[in-house]
């Protein structure tokens, strides 16, 4: 049985607002019956100040799905739509004193229902970016869909690459065999697919690159890495290139992240590949350059 927090149990056994709101003016129906989760969120929004006056839910799902739905309604009642939109699934999980990693998708479903309901109220179309696969890495909650996407985008070919690029398997290592299975599936698929022509120009090792060409190549490499960093709430910025040294700044969630060394290693890999030479990537503070850091050193 799952090790649910007291808060999850409490919200499961005595759910709040577990019924559709009468005279609701916003509805968000999300989930997938195939995965065993479905949530219908109904809201009564005051049109004069866009405040959520009532919220109700109906959920088909496990204990944490029901608890997440219940928590969500408690968290959004009394807030304006813009305030509610700032909530993340992590906020729902935190409100419940945490969820097991396998159950984090329940909090995601809550957030999606909220977004769908608000889009419904505002008459907007909601973009469907929902895809969920088999959970591979339980430590960092990374599924096979995510791994496949990153492997294909970056042409990864080894377990170590996958660890560097996605963090999957970077902690307890029990999922390494599963990662290798996903990887070999991807490699088989890409072997079947027609050879993709590299978008990057071939680098002639005898012909030294101009600094402008170097910057363009490095920026292209960073552009490919950026989506993964942004998925984790971070980003990267190129500051300077000096011979075989590349200076970057990790921003957002990446700055100070315990895995920044892995991120830097990944950037170093990618940049070395496009430049056709081994480079070292150094993290620097925003705005500083090679010259500035030299001055600091002297």
């Amino acid at each position, binding site marked *: 049985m799952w090790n649910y927090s007291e808060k999850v149990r409490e919200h499961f056994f005595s759910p709040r607002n*577990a019924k559709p709101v009468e005279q609701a003016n916003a509805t968000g*129906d999300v989930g997938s*019956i*195939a995965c065993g989760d*479905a949530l219908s969120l109904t809201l009564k929004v005051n049109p004069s100040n866009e405040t959520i006056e009532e919220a109700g839910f109906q959920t*088909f799902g496990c204990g944490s799905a*029901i608890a997440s739905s219940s928590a969500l309604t408690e968290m959004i009642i009394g807030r304006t739509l813009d305030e509610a939109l700032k909530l993340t699934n992590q906020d729902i999980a935190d409100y419940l004193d945490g969820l097991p990693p396998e159950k984090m998708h329940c909090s995601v479903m809550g957030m999606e229902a909220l977004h769908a309901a608000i889009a419904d109220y505002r008459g907007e179309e909601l973009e469907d970016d929902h895809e969920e696969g088999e959970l591979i890495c339980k430590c960092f909650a990374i599924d096979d869909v995510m791994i496949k996407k990153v492997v294909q985008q970056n042409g990864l070919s080894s377990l170590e690459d996958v660890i560097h690029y996605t963090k999957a398997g970077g902690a307890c290592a029990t999922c390494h065999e599963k990662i290798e299975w996903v990887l070999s599936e991807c490699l088989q698929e890409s072997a079947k697919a027609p050879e993709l022509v590299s978008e990057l120009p071939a680098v002639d090792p005898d012909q030294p690159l101009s600094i402008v060409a170097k910057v363009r190549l490095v920026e292209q490499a960073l552009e490919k890495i950026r989506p993964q960093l942004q998925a984790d709430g971070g980003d990267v910025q190129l500051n300077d290139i000096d011979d075989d040294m590349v200076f970057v700044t990790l921003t957002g969630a990446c700055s100070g992240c315990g895995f920044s060394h892995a991120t830097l290693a990944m950037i170093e890999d990618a940049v070395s590949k496009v430049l056709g030479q081994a480079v070292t990537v150094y993290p620097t503070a925003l705005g500083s350059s090679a010259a500035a850091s030299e001055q600091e050193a002297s």
Partner: protein
Amino acid sequence: MSEAKPVYLDNNATTQVAVPVLEAMLPFISEYYGNPSSIHGFGAPVAAALEKAREQVQQFLGAEHSTEIVFTSCATEASNTAILSALEAYPDRKEIITSTVEHPATLDLCKQLERKGYTVHWIGVNNKGRLYMLAFQEALSERVAVISLMWANNETGSLFPIRGLAEQAKEYDVLFHCDAVQVAGKMPIQLSGSGIDMLSISGHKFHGPKGVGALYLRRGLKYRPLFRGGHQERGRRAGTENVAGIVGLGKAAELAQQAIEQDTARIRLLRDRLEMGLLARVPFSVVTGNPQQRVPNTSNVAFEYVEGESILLMLNQYGIAASSGSACTSGSLEPSHVMKAMDVPYTAAHGAIRFSLSRYTTDEDIDRVLEVLPEIISRLRLMSPYWDAAKGEPKEQQFQPQYA
């Protein structure tokens, strides 16, 4: 947990160790600590105890010789050993036949062998869980090294016609392995004279201890061990024996053999009363699997429009233990592969609950479930977006969430 006596209806997961089993085991954890392979006086009584257990299991399985029994650490080891042995003994045969509803011990091994280049014929089942016999016959050929099929399904209790299948395998000289974990202790097993070459059982499914199982290997069978090392189990399974566990398994086998005659009819009555009572009290509930052909202790009932884990959590609140093949209890997002193989609709598959009884199940246990479960289902249905609370039936227009 409530104050009332707990109700344990999860005996297909594991069972309570019988008191005589524990009593038989204890001396082999304390005073009889000798190594059965030793020549001296410490080893001899221990070796004798192993041989007694071997005979008890032989009787239990209706095997011709006690030497056909090899003790293992569990049924997963036994099944892995059987399949891998066949592949190694017949290296020219690169195909395997199994079904889509096997236990992970077989399923995951066969998936791995598929990755390694073997051809696996996955035989499907119909919506009652019956094996597609034509597909089985078509897959049979001299290229097949081993057939591995379960006798009774762990989730639904449905039976495969194992004896007939094993006979058909003989036409092509294909080794036949049977995962008998869920029939052992529930129905008599008569191996001698059957076409079964190898068979796996697990002690803790019939009131024996965990950590011990047995593999039946028909005499004269071509066999390759999985573990290599010492000469234990006549070189068929190296490693110092789990003596107390084996003694417990032997005792449990002896008790189960007696119990099959004495208790089966009563267990079946209890199971049927539970099942009919639930179907009568809870609308939109269905029995999954094949009710005509199944082990007497198992009932799998799907409660439509509600999810299994929620049901189990609420049952647990009343001290009732059952299980579900629901995705959410296993940590995956897909419902049980058995429900999927039988094409049970998702709205029902996620709400499938397995009740598995034992000889310790009482009338009061059944009454208790019949008393609390209907109320739990109504409560959860009130919360379900698929349910029309006002009318007390599924919504006319089925709920269609986005991303579905």
